[in-house]
């Protein structure tokens, strides 16, 4: 046994390695990225190359499971939408080697466009979910989750939130378990209706076992500390920490870290107390279900009743307030304070792209520029304020197409290199097939920049991909986004906006963050060679 100071993400990664993991399949996304990075740096024997998107990741994991080995799929919460088809159907096929689907939710949207709660997905697919309350549980739960997955022969969701993913604490860790041997399934995971109906019946028949696992789980436990019995607290995941911070041992708490909900434990807590407060980070998934379990007459408080804020992450203050505890005294907020939003780095190629775009677009007062997900989304903020939209991975091209179909001109899309291979390629094919009048900018910085510079799946292949999808060679251009090239870039932009059809312009210059890192690595290597 050894103690290590680990981020929640790192605890999950190490827990998976020690649980006999054979492959991690992931697309970078805050706050999940560090899990795969840790495995890449610390366990070379585990397959860990970044995937093109969350759907390819989920499907590859299902294939590894079919062959008998343990696979981990990691993504941020919105990645669950991308892989949902594969994920929901993996509950119908069931698994052979264990699969853990790690969904990192982002309540308060620190780095996201919504705060959807992945526990809904687990319930939707009818599979168990685990939700660690601290870094130690995050580590311990990986082995539990893989064992549960193989015992039930179903995928298991592990749901975390940003505050756990990106917080460090000491974790006691064990030893590495060997990987499963190759053990290819002899079943046929062919979801034709006749077979799927039978497998869905199997999934339904496993529900009592999943419930039993929750009722007896070591991660769900009741504490008694309040003789008044006025309030029972259901505390989920890290919500438990805020309750303990506020009230210590003087409360009646049912800590829930494993789903489906332990119905008997909830009924017991309700029978022993006059009301229930549900403390959960994310959406009121549990609160709604508890209200249903206990019926209309029983008082259930939480985010829906306004006892806790309806949106945003929980914190020790909102929870203490919901518990009616005294607050303050505190300093008033400062007067001399201005917001400091994130911005594109000085010297970043995306800046030159927006400078050029804004210059040309100004000649067309009716223009709209549809944006996408990545560093370049910051082009929506001052000083550029260039973007009309940013919705989901790939939506720049398809929204530009739809708006052009409706008659908008000029209709322009800006998408990054990694986002283009994630979900932009299929939309570009639609546009080419329809000969849509759009101009697509693939701003290529040779990396997945926003999440810290991971490999981008299509690097060195973009011209070939575009030509392969049918973009006409004379309307495909590569430029270097630098101030000195502004006349050339703006000329090409003007010409291609005027072309009635699909044009693709690829401004290509390495991300200055990864360029600096690569220069540093080269310098260190040179120094070592001199020695």
């Amino acid at each position, binding site marked *: 046994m050894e103690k290590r100071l680990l981020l929640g993400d790192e605890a999950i990664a190490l827990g998976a390695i020690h649980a006999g993991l054979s492959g991690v399949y992931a697309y970078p996304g805050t706050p999940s990225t560090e899990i795969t990075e840790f495995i890449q740096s610390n366990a070379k024997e585990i397959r860990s190359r970044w995937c093109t998107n969350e759907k390819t990741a989920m499907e590859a994991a299902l294939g590894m499971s079919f062959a008998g080995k343990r696979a981990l799929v990691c993504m941020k919460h919105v990645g669950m939408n991308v892989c949902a088809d594969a994920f929901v159907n993996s509950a119908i096929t069931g698994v052979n080697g264990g699969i853990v689907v790690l969904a990192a939710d982002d309540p308060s949207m620190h780095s996201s466009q919504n705060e959807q709660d992945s526990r809904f997905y687990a319930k939707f697919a009818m599979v168990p979910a685990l939700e660690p309350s601290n870094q130690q549980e995050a580590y311990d739960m990986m082995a539990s989750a893989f064992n549960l997955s193989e015992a039930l022969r179903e995928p298991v969701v592990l749901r975390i939130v940003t505050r756990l993913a990106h917080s460090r604490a000491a974790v006691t860790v064990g030893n590495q378990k060997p990987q499963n041997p190759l053990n290819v399934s002899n079943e046929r995971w062919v979801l034709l209706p006749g077979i799927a109906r039978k497998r869905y019946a199997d999934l339904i028949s496993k529900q009592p076992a999943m419930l039993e696992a929750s009722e007896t789980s070591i991660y769900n436990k009741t504490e008694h500390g309040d003789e008044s019995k006025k309030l029972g607290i259901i505390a989920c995941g890290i919500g438990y920490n805020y309750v303990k911070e506020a009230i210590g041992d003087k409360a009646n708490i049912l800590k829930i870290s494993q789903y489906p909900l332990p119905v008997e434990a909830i009924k017991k807590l309700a029978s022993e107390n006059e009301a229930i407060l549900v403390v959960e980070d994310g959406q009121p998934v549990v609160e709604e279900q508890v209200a249903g379990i206990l019926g209309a007459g029983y008082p259930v408080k939480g985010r829906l009743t306004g006892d806790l804020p309806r949106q945003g992450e929980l914190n*020790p203050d909102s929870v203490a307030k919901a518990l009616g505890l005294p607050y303050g005294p505190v300093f008033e907020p400062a007067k001399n304070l201005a917001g*400091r939003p994130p911005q594109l780095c000085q010297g970043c190629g995306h800046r030159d792209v927006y400078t050029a775009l804004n210059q040309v677009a100004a000649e067309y007062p009716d223009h709209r520029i549809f944006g996408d997900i990545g560093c370049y989304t910051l082009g929506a903020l001052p000083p550029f304020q260039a973007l009309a939209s940013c919705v989901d991975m790939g939506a720049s091209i398809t929204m530009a197409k739809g708006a052009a179909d409706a008659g908008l001109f000029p209709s322009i899309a800006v998408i990054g290199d990694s986002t283009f291979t994630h979900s932009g390629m299929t939309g570009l094919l639609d546009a080419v097939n329809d000969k849509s009048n759009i101009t697509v900018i693939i701003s290529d910085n040779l990396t997945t920049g926003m999440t810290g510079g991971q490999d981008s799946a299509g690097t060195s292949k973009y011209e070939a991909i575009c030509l392969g999808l049918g973009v006409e060679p004379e309307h495909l251009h590569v430029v270097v986004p630098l101030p000195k090239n502004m006349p050339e870039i703006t000329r090409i932009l003007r010409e291609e906006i005027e072309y009635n059809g699909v044009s693709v312009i690829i401004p290509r210059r390495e991300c200055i963050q990864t360029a600096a890192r690569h220069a540093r690595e080269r310098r260190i290597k040179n120094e070592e060679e001199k020695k």
Partner: protein
Amino acid sequence: MKKDIILCGVGGQGILSIATIIGEAATKAGLYLKQAEVHGMSQRGGDVQSNLRLSTDPIWSDLIPEGKADVVISMEPMESLRYLPYLAKTGTIVTSSKPFINIPNYPDESTLQAELDNLPSVVKLDIDSVAKDAGNPRGANMVLLGMAAPYIEILTVEQLRKAISVIFARKGEAIVESNLKAFDMGVEATK
């Protein structure tokens, strides 16, 4: 004993290095520790902060409650004010005095400094100049850590020095020495 610390500044100023060093020292000292960081989008020139909790007893929440931070350690004066509601009434702000202006609506500097000076306990210093004097212009964060050392209390100056040596060890002896020098000048400056 328990110390709740908010580290803050602008993305890229090196607050996570300060957190790593305090974390190393606390681990070696056998303290309980929780350290919540900000990664991802806000790192790009935006405001960043880290909640650092050190204690001789187990810690529950990763986040510090309002009015409970013993120290706010800031690489930038306006950023130090952003977390004022978290500072305990008896707490101290340790901050760089030099504004980092990358926004058009940065407050008037003299009113900003006046608001800081009106608070009960503020220690401020032009850490960039001190770091330059120490021959280590990139070591401003170590100067700041040195300034804050007496207020961290739960760790000694010597424990923090040792942690600096450990964290920078792989970058070579010269880097360790220049960071220790910057740290020591920070300690001296606030004596």
